[in-house]
């Protein structure tokens, strides 16, 4: 290729060689860069075709969505028998919450998004007013779900179950464990020996004990430790245990974030005359939490999935409901469908958390814009 001659300082920006950028360039570089690669691409496409064909067939095309039993399903088609889900979807979602009162759960669930919106999206319009609602929401949700006030029928916690139970445990655990985790992380870094020792003991104990043990403690022993006369419902006790357990993990994640902040940040804050709480609020925590987002969300997702462990103390989470369904002679043997459905629910929730955390990380990244 003939090179043109430019005067020094006048060399123009030339376009890249053809076939290296754009869709065509990408396909060429990634899929057909050599003969063996091209072969692999073609084989993969063929395999994918058969795989996807089979999956779509089983899930949708050959699936049965309504029937009276497994045997009835099999008579209609040989794909998945989703009837086990569709016939029991109410139980999967609400547990044994009375059917006539389920609207209360629906309203609580939908308004939860309004309550979370101002906390999760700082740029939302009218944020201040929405925040008042967020503050008021826990009482609102409690009254609506439990009943017993304003003429609402009182519902026993033992009727709770299914996805509703997962969401209650998960959301309460997540919302309570973040502030507690922050306090523990600060406590562990504190100059006050008593505060530091207590924080370290709490964190190490909670991390060193299996969650199942804590749940058994919650179900059987916690009342011995509490002052006589107090009697929390098992639901509250389980939420406390989940909160403590994940707060310990979050505290360690945040401590990592705090330690990653350069010393110069504190010196600058000191030099400006800021006191401990001002430093913590404006300098330490905003930076430490930003660094810790992946770890915090990791812990949240773990907590959310661990809520299925409550089945060991007799609470019916979605897996418990699923097992109950499978124990029914009509649906015997449909475990694939049941567990896939429960898995899908957990995947959607956890994937949403993960995407939100990515979005937040990007938003808080002030280095490159």
């Amino acid at each position, binding site marked *: 290729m003939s090179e043109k001659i430019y005067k020094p300082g006048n060399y123009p920006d030339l376009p890249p060689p053809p076939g290296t950028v754009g869709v065509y360039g990408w396909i060429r570089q990634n899929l057909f860069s050599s003969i063996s690669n091209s072969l692999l691409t073609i084989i993969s496409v063929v395999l994918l075709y058969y795989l996807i064909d089979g999956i779509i067939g089983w899930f949708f095309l050959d699936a049965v969505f309504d029937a009276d039993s497994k045997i009835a399903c099999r008579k209609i088609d040989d794909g998945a028998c989703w009837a086990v889900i569709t016939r029991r979807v109410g139980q999967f979602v609400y547990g044994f919450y009375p059917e006539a009162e389920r609207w209360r759960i629906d309203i609580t669930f939908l308004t939860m998004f309004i309550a979370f919106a101002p906390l999760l999206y700082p740029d939302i319009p009218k944020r201040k007013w929405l925040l008042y609602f967020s503050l008021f929401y826990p009482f609102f949700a409690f009254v609506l779900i439990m009943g017993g006030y304003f003429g609402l029928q009182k519902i026993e916690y033992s009727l709770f179950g299914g996805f509703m139970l997962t969401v209650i445990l998960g959301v309460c655990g997540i919302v309570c464990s973040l502030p507690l985790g922050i306090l523990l992380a600060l406590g562990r870094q504190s100059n006050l020996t008593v505060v530091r020792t207590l924080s370290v003991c709490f964190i190490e104990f909670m991390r060193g004990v299996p969650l199942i043990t804590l749940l058994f403690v919650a179900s059987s022993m916690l009342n011995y430790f509490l002052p006589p006369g107090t009697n929390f419902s098992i639901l509250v006790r389980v939420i406390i245990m989940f909160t403590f357990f994940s707060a310990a993990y979050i505290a360690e994640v945040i401590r990592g974030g705090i330690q990653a902040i*350069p010393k*110069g*940040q504190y*010196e*600058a*804050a*000191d*030099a*400006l*005359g*800021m*006191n401990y709480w*001002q430093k913590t609020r*404006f*300098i330490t925590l*905003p*930076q430490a939490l*930003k660094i810790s987002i992946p770890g915090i969300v990791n812990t949240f997702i773990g907590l959310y999935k661990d809520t299925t462990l409550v089945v060991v103390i007799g609470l019916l989470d979605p897996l418990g409901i699923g097992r109950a369904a499978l124990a029914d002679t009509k649906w015997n043997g449909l475990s694939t469908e049941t567990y896939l459905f429960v898995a899908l629910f957990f995947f959607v929730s956890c994937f949403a958390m993960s995407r939100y955390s990515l979005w937040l990380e990007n938003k*808080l990244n*002030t*280095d*490159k*814009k």
Partner: protein
Amino acid sequence: MVVNKNKSSKPVIEIKEMHKWFGNFHVLKNISLGVNQGERIVICGPSGSGKSTLIRCINRLEVHQQGDIIVNNVELTGDLKNLEAIRSDVGMVFQSFNLFPHLTVLENCTLAPIWVKKLPKKEAEELAMELLTRVKIPEQALKYPGQLSGGQQQRVAIARSLCMQPKIMLFDEPTSALDPEMIKEVLDTMIELAETGMTMLVVTHEMGFAKKVADSVIFMDEGEIIEQNDPKNFFNNPKNDRTKLFLSQILNH
């Protein structure tokens, strides 16, 4: 050389027979130093000589173990109330800028005035914009520090300190982390600041700046003040051999 008309005989910093140790290591040995209001002092010396530690003792980022440091008639002790009062009167500029990366330039400048000095937000913002204009970067106010060049960041750091309306400014090697082409913009800002009559203690290797601005130059080595003199005599007739050696090393290349 800028003639200092602002210099007075009113002492704002008095250091008397001050010692400091890092563990067993004796970093500062018997330091006595008086700084008058409006005075500009440049401190130089080889690395490890204790010059940064000395100015960091003045706002108690480092704690001295013996002797007295009196700033604005208040003695530096462990008392937190005294300390926060002194720190809001003494501005400090660091080698590595230490801007808060999660806050915009404007927020960096208004944070301490709003929360430490309890200035209303609007007033703090007006003051910040005024000072950002003085360091010639008002147009960057809404950007984040990570989007600015080193020289711009250091000028923001100077403006941030000035927003607290300090009586004394400490500079800890403000140009050492900068590319050569950005050193001048920061030095110009400091020279302008000197012209307003600010009391300044500057640790630096920029001897041009010392010659131009300083009322007095201090040479430190191994934790001691070896020599203190006005810039003319300091550069032309250094008395101590170690000063001569140091000057020959940094000036002749």
